[in-house]
């Protein structure tokens, strides 16, 4: 809120510059965000409704400087006319205090004086109509929101009551609201006049033709106003104050102040006050007890009684000193104080936080058992650091992208998973929760392609959101990567080439190798809507799908206007992490390598050939790897030459030539039988 310097100085005028004012206020928790042109911009915390007025801020300044607040005598205005209006407050719980007053014969041609205009505008309010301006002025000055109705629009009486379900009102801002049955409203005998404390109706407000008005100065409980404001999505200066709490003892002073100003500025003849205040309905004065011990336990120091006394005094708190503490009567305007902790905050706020001591936190050395999850929480793991390092070493840059993405892109990248859609997204590009990490990677790819980067290698570790089964929501940590463009940066010493499937597959295999699970994992050709049907694989650990790898579908690339192939992978870290490390014994006996080059139909997957070799060679086969794949001169069309190295070893003794030879023979025979493969000569 903005505060006018000259206005504040009418309440408290120490010999301080505006800058010093602002430092002082910031120090006591009323953060000054700007102090230019004799205007203070203060961020008032939501619990400090009492500070939303000149009087309120002045009170704080006076307290911190230990100086008195200037007295403003507001006389009660004698009635010039006798006119009254019946006011019925149906439930005093909804309006413990309600004061009205009729003022007749207001000068229609009166204008808001310049000094008042200036102050309103300094505080960020527009000038609307002299009566409205005066009401707003007093609100800014004292903190009491009030309302002026055009008397001629009111039929017979004023009722303060709960709304009936389905009642409709058109408000001052032009919006039409259909009410529930829990809203406090101001009505007359036939229609609604206002949503109490929030906003007046369009038909009952003052206009340039208005000569007779009814003023309303009331206290409405914060919770009711907060509910109504949120229920009907309204925003008003009045509601802001009521929902934070308005001093329930100032309604009469405020209405008198408004009356004085109206008479001064727009003439008019005030009637008597119509006071419907229900004394017992107003909250009794709160008392809070604070013990010395409590104060010490929270702050870490033992305060001197006189220091605390002096702070309470400067805040105008009535208190009784007791043997071990204080019993404090909370002023009616301090809605934020109801617990001893609240008083402690007041004490340290004025004592100075920088004066508090610094002490070392003591504790027992304990180790929390290394369980993966505690209740609905999971333990953060350092494991991912290694994955990050591994990928970074392979040239990947880590990105962080938004968890909400564009719906169509997400759907294109993962059509089988329904994504959670936000009710109130920021933009359409951020409307659904990601079900995989590819949208963010692709966005980053496009961003970097547009900036002439032609060697792109990105990864992200983050949460994806999906329905695990019909009802339950799952959040899984995933790791995904994307590569595109050249394999290396262009340079003299390395023949660069475009990346392909086997680059990214190699990176994935390296990750799986880190978990020592590569041997138990298989890449199975699978179709996926977002991936090239001929270059896509599901990554399986035993029979469990733990990830995917492949080339993005050319049709998708066309949509994205990307000309080069793009390769992506994704791994579910939750599943990957759950896989136990499996060790096998290392044999100390020598290994024997035998190479095997065969001619085979080009469509036979390497994995199948390897499985067949494994089957034929049996336990002696320690490992097998491909060291050459060739098609071209010398190889019949439709066939490929593929060369395997078989590493044979016995766990308990040295192999003999004969068993190596027979193993190889068996292998060749089975390959021939299964695939019609032939040994390649030479």
């Amino acid at each position, binding site marked *: 809120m903005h505060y006018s310097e000259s206005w504040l100085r009418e309440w408290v005028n120490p010999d301080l510059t505006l800058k010093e004012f602002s430092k002082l206020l910031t120090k006591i928790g009323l953060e000054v965000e700007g102090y230019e042109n004799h205007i203070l911009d203060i961020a008032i915390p*939501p619990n400090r409704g009492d500070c939303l007025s000149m009087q309120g801020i002045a009170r704080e300044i006076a307290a911190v400087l230990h100086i008195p607040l200037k007295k403003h005598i507001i006389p009660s205005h004698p009635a010039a006319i006798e006119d009254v209006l019946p006011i019925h407050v149906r439930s005093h719980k909804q309006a413990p205090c309600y004061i009205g007053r009729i003022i007749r014969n207001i000068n229609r041609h009166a204008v808001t004086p310049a000094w008042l205009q200036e102050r309103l505008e300094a505080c960020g309010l527009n000038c609307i109509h002299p009566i409205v301006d005066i009401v707003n002025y007093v609100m800014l000055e004292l903190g009491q929101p009030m309302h002026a109705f055009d008397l001629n629009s009111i039929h017979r009486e004023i009722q303060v009551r709960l709304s009936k379900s389905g009642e409709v009102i058109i408000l001052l801002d032009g919006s039409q609201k259909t009410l529930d049955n829990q809203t406090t409203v101001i009505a007359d005998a036939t229609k609604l006049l206002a949503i109490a404390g929030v906003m007046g109706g369009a038909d009952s407000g003052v206009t340039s033709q208005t000569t007779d008005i009814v003023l309303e100065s009331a206290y409405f409980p914060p919770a009711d106003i907060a509910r109504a404001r949120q229920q009907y999505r309204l925003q008003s200066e009045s509601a802001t104050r009521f929902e934070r709490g308005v001093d329930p003892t100032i309604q009469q002073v405020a209405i008198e102040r408004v009356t004085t100003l109206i008479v001064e500025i727009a003439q008019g003849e005030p009637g008597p006050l119509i006071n419907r205040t229900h004394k017992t309905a107003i909250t009794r004065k709160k008392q809070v007890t604070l013990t010395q011990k409590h104060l010490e336990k929270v702050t870490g120091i033992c305060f001197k009684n006189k220091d605390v006394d002096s702070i309470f005094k400067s805040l105008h708190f009535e208190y009784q000193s007791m043997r071990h503490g204080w019993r404090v009567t909370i002023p009616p305007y301090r809605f934020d104080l109801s617990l001893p902790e609240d008083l402690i905050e007041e004490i340290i706020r004025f004592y100075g*936080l920088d004066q508090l001591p610094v002490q070392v936190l003591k504790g027992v050395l304990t180790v929390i058992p290394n369980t993966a999850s505690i209740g609905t929480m999971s333990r953060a793991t350092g494991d991912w650091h290694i994955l990050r390092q591994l990928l970074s070493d392979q040239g990947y840059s880590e990105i962080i992208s938004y968890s909400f993405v564009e719906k169509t892109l997400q759907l294109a990248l993962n059509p089988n998973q329904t994504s959670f859609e936000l009710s109130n997204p920021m933009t359409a590009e951020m409307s659904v929760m990601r079900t995989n990490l590819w949208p963010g990677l692709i966005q980053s790819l496009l961003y970097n392609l547009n900036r002439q980067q032609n060697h792109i290698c990105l990864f992200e570790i983050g949460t994806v959101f999906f329905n695990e089964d019909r009802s339950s929501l799952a959040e899984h940590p995933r790791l995904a990567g994307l590569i595109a463009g050249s394999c290396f940066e262009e340079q003299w010493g390395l023949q660069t080439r475009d990346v392909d499937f086997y680059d990214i597959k190699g990176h994935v295999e390296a990750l799986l190798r880190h978990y020592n699970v590569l041997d138990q994992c298989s890449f199975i050709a699978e179709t996926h809507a977002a991936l090239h049907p001929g270059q896509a694989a599901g990554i399986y650990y035993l029979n469990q799908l733990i990830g995917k790898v492949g080339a993005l579908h050319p049709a998708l690339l066309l949509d994205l206007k990307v000309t080069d192939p793009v390769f992506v992978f994704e791994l579910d870290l939750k599943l990957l992490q759950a896989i136990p490390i499996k060790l096998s014994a290392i044999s100390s006996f020598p290994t024997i390598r035998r190479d095997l080059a065969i001619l085979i139909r080009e469509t036979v997957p390497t994995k199948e050939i390897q499985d067949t070799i494994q089957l034929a060679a049996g336990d002696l086969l320690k490992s097998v790897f491909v060291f050459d794949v060739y098609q071209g001169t010398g190889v019949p069309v439709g066939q490929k030459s593929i060369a395997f190295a078989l590493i044979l070893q016995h766990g308990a003794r040295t192999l003999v030539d004969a068993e190596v030879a027979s193993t190889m023979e068996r292998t060749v025979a089975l390959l021939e039988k299964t695939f019609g493969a032939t040994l390649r000569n030479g």
Partner: protein
Amino acid sequence: MQLETLLQQAEHAIKSTTSIQDLEQCRVEYLGKKGSLTEIIKTIGQLPPDERKLAGQNINLAKENIEQWIKEKSILLKNNQLKQQLEKETIDITLPGRDTGCGSIHPVTQSIEDLQRIFEQMGFISLEGPEIEDDEHNFTRLNTPPFHPARAMQDTFYFPNGLLLRTQTSAVQIRAMKYMQPPLRMISIGRVYRRDFDLTHTPMFHQIEVLVIDEDATLATLKHLLTQVLQAFFAREVTIQFRPSYFPFTEPSLEVDIGCIACNGRGTVCRVCKQTGFVEVLGCGMVHPHVLKMADVDTKRYRGFAVGAGIDRLTMLKYGILDLRSLFENDVRFLKQF
């Protein structure tokens, strides 16, 4: 041939060779089985017995001489040869090395890992909670019941089923207090979301939540902890200033400023602290008694303090990054600097 002449010839021949091969030929020529010197040795037998000894000695001497010359020449030639090889093999070491690519770890991740390490050193457990939260954990149990004005402080993303994207990692402290017994020291780091997008706000950012529930959790111990952590994180002396503030889930609530990292608190023309010399880094406070009671913590015995800090902001301060959005644009030219 006379020994003298032979020696002269040999010395000349050896010294004028230019290659190892020539030298080897010389050796064969003079010392080999059919070499000149060998021929002379064969003549010793024809000499009278009293001359034989002297002749033998002379021949031996000559042989040693020749061997010495060959050896010296050999070393010389080998050295020359090595020198030539080295010259031939000399390359332009100013050409860049082969670049197989080196990636990078995101600066925010690095901050997260730093903070995690700092707190784990002090015996804190690091926990993660869900990002899609319910109203209960994100607001109500944090002393922000429905219609509380503080809800307006954070514009929240909602789902049609009433769930929401957590606006603060504080939601995890509620879960921590539920599943773990005090004394408790935990941190939780993760993504949080608020409907806000401008120069200094992105709709998603990262927070760290720190919670201590203990008998001696006081403002004084909170001050000490924060000082330690901030100095460890920024790896330097840090001036710290506390201001009263308001959060619904702490009472008293404080805000913490540190002397500006960019201008060393001097406050001269500085885009980071805008000439104030201080920058706001986090909020904290004593856990509100309502929060503790709702979590069934024995408030007679224990108190708690909590800290919430924006990691993105800490990262920006640490590296002098001026635009928050650059953290999430993922420009590789930016990322590769970390």
